[in-house]
């Protein structure tokens, strides 16, 4: 693995008595989609603002492709595309005019026509900003973040306020951008988004990283394992499955069997059944999700803090 695209060590930022970011350390690899997840006020946006040089941290170090956002802000602005959580454009500016203006700011920009097509803004190119729907405004904002062909794109609450269809469209778009080799830092409080898009996720709460892992691993950790529920083609001896290293528990629920365990649980169960000449129907993987992980991890975090005090 090369140098990280983003390296944050012990970042701290306060606004007067308010500690926005207490102690955040994380590292984002080049080409990764990295999620920063947490409740409102957890310090996500402040972390990002310090990373791109919009704010100066009180302490800690930040490097973005090796550049220091305090002293090398000008270089950073050329290689980072930013989508801010809030922000609008003048109502009587046309979509194409806005994108072309931003295009002129960069040395090797993307093609406006191509970008508006990819973002589904082609038919809207000649329309005033004020006529755009929320989803279209959001996509325009993403377009402005990408027009400079950034090495790193920072997208803050990209799909907040979008309807489910627009949200899914935007996710597809982000996956497409990653395929072009852009590193993406995604700030969100939307669990499904992080699960769907992110290679790794940092859970931030009260200005600290409480967990950092892949979405699946975080969910599994929260659950203490996974659960597979299925209907066997014939009854079988429980020991067929309880003997497997992946399996930690087994119970019967009517004719269904519920197996809990870790690792490649589904594969292990299906293969063992198959070896015994059985099949499993109606297989359901109980997807404990990031949401569960979040509640569990932030809950225990808060508890630990209370105990320390």
């Amino acid at each position, binding site marked *: 693995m*090369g*140098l990280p*695209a983003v390296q944050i060590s012990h970042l701290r930022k306060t606004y007067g008595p308010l500690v926005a970011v207490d102690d955040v350390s994380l590292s984002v690899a*080049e080409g990764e989609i990295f999620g920063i997840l947490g409740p409102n006020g957890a310090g996500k946006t402040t972390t990002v603002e310090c990373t*791109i040089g*919009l704010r100066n941290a009180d302490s800690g170090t930040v490097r973005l*492709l*090796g*550049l220091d956002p305090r002293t*090398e802000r*000008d*270089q*950073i*602005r*050329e*290689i*980072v595309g*930013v989508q*801010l959580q*809030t*922000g*609008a*454009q*003048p109502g*009587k*500016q046309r979509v194409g*005019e*806005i994108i*072309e*203006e*931003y295009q*002129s*700011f*960069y*040395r090797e920009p993307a093609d406006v026509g191509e970008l508006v097509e990819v973002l589904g803004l082609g038919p809207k190119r000649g329309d005033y900003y004020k006529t755009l729907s929320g989803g279209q405004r959001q996509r325009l904002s993403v377009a*402005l973040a990408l027009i*400079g062909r950034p*090495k790193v794109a920072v997208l803050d609450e990209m799909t907040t306020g979008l309807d489910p269809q627009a949200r899914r469209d935007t996710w597809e778009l982000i996956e497409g951008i990653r395929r072009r080799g852009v590193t993406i830092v995604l700030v969100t409080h939307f669990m499904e988004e992080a699960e769907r898009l992110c290679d790794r996720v940092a859970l931030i709460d009260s200005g600290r990283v409480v967990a950092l892992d892949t979405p699946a691993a975080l969910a599994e950790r929260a659950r203490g394992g996974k659960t597979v529920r299925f209907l066997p083609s014939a009854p079988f001896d429980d020991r067929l499955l309880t003997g497997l290293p992946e399996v930690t528990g087994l119970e019967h629920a009517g004719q269904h069997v519920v197996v809990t365990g870790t690792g490649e649980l589904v594969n292990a169960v299906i293969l063992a059944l198959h070896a015994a000449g059985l099949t499993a129907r109606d297989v359901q993987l109980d997807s404990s999700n990031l949401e569960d992980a979040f509640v569990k991890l932030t809950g225990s975090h808060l508890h630990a803090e209370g105990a320390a005090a």
Partner: protein
Amino acid sequence: MNAIALARSRLAWPRRLPLPGTAQGAAFGKIVLNEARLARRSPMPIIGSIGLPVVLMIIFGEIPSSSQVVSTLGGLTLFDVYLPIIMVLGLTMLTLLGLPGPLVSYRELGVLRRLSTTPVPPSWLLAAQVVVQLGGALTGLLIVNVVSVIAFGAADPKSPAGLALSCLLAIAGLFALGLLIAAVAPTSGSVNAISRLALIPLMFFAGLWLPRPLMPQILQDISNYTPLGTAVEAIQDAMQTGFPPARPLLVLAAYAVVFGFAARRFFRWE
């Protein structure tokens, strides 16, 4: 590593000067073009600052008595006296409405903040707005002067250089005031409130309701040191007498400097 090396090898754009013929100049030109389009699409300030003076001038020009020399006006006609007032009124409408309005709305919308994440500093948007409004101001002054000479037979100014200098200093002082309003006004709505409030005393001392020669001495003295009163004085002198004296020019320059520094000091980008 490649990306890092690339990022380091690129010189950062000089952040202050968008020189013509460079990529930065092209970017600045693009911003100016967009600001001009936006001004055209919300034309009320431009109409107010060009249309209103022209209409006023036509009204004064058509009043028969306004072309008669009046002894209490120092031997000038009413039209002569009102021409500088009308010119200054146009500039004032522009600087109080046209200049701060868009800038404050850009701050409200987050456009300035958004720009500060790009290689282009948000101050360029401010500069572009000044360029566009300056174009409007000069156009307005030109129209008023050309119409006054062609349609109403106004005499050519005694000192064209003095007139140009007076107008430029008046524009500088008023634009600095407009930027100061943009700096302190928290919302677009408050720009209108502040501007309306400021407009009345400013225009009073310019002589809109009572021309300066008719003011009691004490009001004239005050007027000499108000931004618009002194602008009218300088322009009047340049048109009727000759190159204006130092005092009104210096007062205008002082306003430009003081308001300009205050605007710079108090301007918030987000």
